[in-house]
């Protein structure tokens, strides 16, 4: 395992080790590029993961202070927890459910396809499906995505079987156990899925792909990657010429350190990445780094989500088995006749009893609530994930509140767009109809949880005035500053974002290494 000197200004510094940063770190290291990855969280491996919802939450979740505002219900029910994402080596790839689906071609061109939508700040990506296809191939191979290549699908759990029967009763055709970054057979030194449940709590078998035990150790084995965990970056530094020169971070002991860098890549997710750019404001960049467009922190998207849980007169035991191995894709198309633009996926989901109590109807109490939990054993569940509208008013600003290091924290503001609400209501109706078609006696349109898909706050754009980064994730303003996480999403698509984040990171690594060897950065 490499160690690099703080004064070594030849390294690429990557901030964050999740789907974006972790992959970028390994891909660069494989190409011989020296990388220092700074990770705010600690290092946990499958043996450390805890199959208990609240204990795992305490171990892995990002619990540093954040504040919220806006009309979303999360701001009322979970005001200090806008997102359910992870602070650990591996980032949210420890927690994600593994659903790995590509953007549909039209979703790269949301503005052109949907036309202007009132109140939405839609934009086309500067890349398209043809450009991304080979990178998706590489991403699917890296993650070992089921139903791609020659990898078989996962078997269907009880929760899936209920879901599938209801979907087919409604006439849905594109119904299967998902394209999942969870091994259906042993591969890449990782075991096959044991249907253990607790996918959200870190896979104790390592059957689910996570950078924590794939890309990170693979990168470290090259001798080109040093991961410093419990290292919280405070600000990115630059010289008078406007090039970034390094980062200041608080190390595990709370001491401020300065790591010099040739290139800095920000991959701290859609809250921490814009927060860091804003907290790095200087006399040369008074509005924050890479922010000449004013778009840093803007256009925050979280996918239009929600859940449907339903009770049957017989047991389902939805908690047994893979959490999200089940999908209906028929509604993912763009079909404005439904009353909204864009589309959504329906995916199986289950929560254990403790989290069901917290999330079924946050703040709910009395018999209307408890009689639902009384039939927990007879419940089935699904999750809605659809494209939401980027809005200029939604996003991350610096809060008056400070974190444990004295740094201003992210305030996350979100108001639903009417398109989001129309889509969610459509999805609730379809999800409930699926379960009623199988004999559900009661159904619950459950509100969105604290966000897991956080996108768009440093968006990619063709023109510098429309966004923060170009088609390589390179900031329009500063050539040696990159964004490598979901915050570079121009629009969100209907798909779980991790596969796209990984594909973009593999592609970005290729570009960065090429530009370095050409002496361009």
């Amino acid at each position, binding site marked *: 395992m490499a160690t690099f000197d703080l004064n070594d200004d030849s390294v690429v510094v990557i901030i964050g080790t999740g789907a974006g940063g972790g992959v970028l770190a390994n891909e660069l290291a494989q190409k011989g590029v020296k990388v220092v990855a700074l990770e705010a969280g600690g290092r946990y491996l499958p043996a450390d993961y805890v*199959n*208990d*919802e*609240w204990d795992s939450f305490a171990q892995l979740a990002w619990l540093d202070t954040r504040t919220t505002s806006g009309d979303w219900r999360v701001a009322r029910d979970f005001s200090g927890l806008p997102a359910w994402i992870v602070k650990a080596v591996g980032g949210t790839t420890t927690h994600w459910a593994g659903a790995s689906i590509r953007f549909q071609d039209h979703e790269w061109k949301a503005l052109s396809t949907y036309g202007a939508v009132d109140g939405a700040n839609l934009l086309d990506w500067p890349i398209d499906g043809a450009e991304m296809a080979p990178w998706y191939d590489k991403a699917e191979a890296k993650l070992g995505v089921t139903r791609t290549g020659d990898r078989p699908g996962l*078997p*269907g*759990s*009880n929760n899936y*079987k*209920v879901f599938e*029967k209801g979907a087919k009763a409604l006439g849905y055709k594109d119904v299967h156990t998902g394209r999942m970054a969870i091994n259906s057979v042993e591969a890449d030194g990782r075991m096959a*899925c*044991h*249907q*253990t*449940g*607790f996918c959200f709590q870190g896979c*104790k*078998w390592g059957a689910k792909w996570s950078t924590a035990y794939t890309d990170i150790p693979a990168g470290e084995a090259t001798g080109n990657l040093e991961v410093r965990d419990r290292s919280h970056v405070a600000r990115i530094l630059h010289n008078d010429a406007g090039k970034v020169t390094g980062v200041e971070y608080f190390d595990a002991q709370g001491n401020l350190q300065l790591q010099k860098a040739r290139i800095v890549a920000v991959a701290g997710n859609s809250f921490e990445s814009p927060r860091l750019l804003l907290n790095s404001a200087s006399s040369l960049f008074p509005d924050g780094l890479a922010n000449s467009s004013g778009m840093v922190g803007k256009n925050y998207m979280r996918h239009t989500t929600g859940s449907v849980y339903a009770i049957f007169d*017989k*047991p*389902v*035991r939805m*908690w*047994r*088995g893979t959490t999200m191995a089940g999908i209906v894709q028929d509604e993912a198309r763009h079909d404005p006749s439904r009353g909204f633009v864009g589309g959504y996926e329906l995916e199986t989901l289950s929560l*254990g*009893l*403790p989290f*069901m*109590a*917290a999330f079924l109807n946050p*703040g709910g*109490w*009395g*018999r209307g*609530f*408890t009689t639902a*939990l*009384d039939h*927990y*054993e007879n419940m089935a569940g699904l999750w809605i994930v659809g494209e939401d509208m980027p809005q200029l008013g939604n996003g991350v600003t610096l809060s008056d509140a400070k974190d444990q290091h004295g740094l201003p924290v992210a305030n996350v503001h979100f108001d639903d767009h009417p398109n989001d609400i129309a889509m969610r209501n459509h999805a609730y109706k379809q999800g409930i109809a699926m379960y009623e078609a*199988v004999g559900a006696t009661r159904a619950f349109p459950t509100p969105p949880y604290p966000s897991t898909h956080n996108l768009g706050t440093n968006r990619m754009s063709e023109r510098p005035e429309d966004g923060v980064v170009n088609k390589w994730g390179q900031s329009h303003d500063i050539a040696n500053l990159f964004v490598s996480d979901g915050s570079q999403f121009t629009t969100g698509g209907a798909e779980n974002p991790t596969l796209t984040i990984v594909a973009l990171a593999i592609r970005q690594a290729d570009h960065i290494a090429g530009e370095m060897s050409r002496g361009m950065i």
Partner: protein
Amino acid sequence: MKVERTGLTRRALLGRAVAAGAMAVTGAGFIAAPDAAWAMEVSVISPAQMVSLMQMARDIYPHDQVPDRFYAVAVKGYDAADKKALIEAGIAELDAAAKAQGHADYVSIGWEEDRVKVLQAVEKSVFFQTIRAGLVTGLYNQKDIWPIFGYEGESFSQGGYIDHGFDDIDWL
């Protein structure tokens, strides 16, 4: 057994065991189930206040199949010096709301629906929201309660559910 919810004064508590719901205040600082299945000692707040808290817990998250001892575990942390002011003021507020609705106090109301109306009158208060939010983890995260709801929890220790019924649904 007869539910006797009146006379929960300190004098009455000291003088005799008073049943409140399925709970009985059996003496100073001591609450026990009538069948002695469990008992709880309080040292900071009063037994009457703890009885009110337990009734409140049951009315907020009523599960008829869940015994009192789980609710007792969920609220016993409020018998603490740093919680005393919140609990005393909160129960006083609750009893005042009960009086405003024509009852002697909260805990002596016979029907759950009537107690719920009193809780609805105070549900915006910090006291109510603290108790409710605390119960979400305090009640449902007790592992011993999970089997009552059929929840099996972790399966890693037995090799996952792959050979333990992950796809055994037989009624579809």
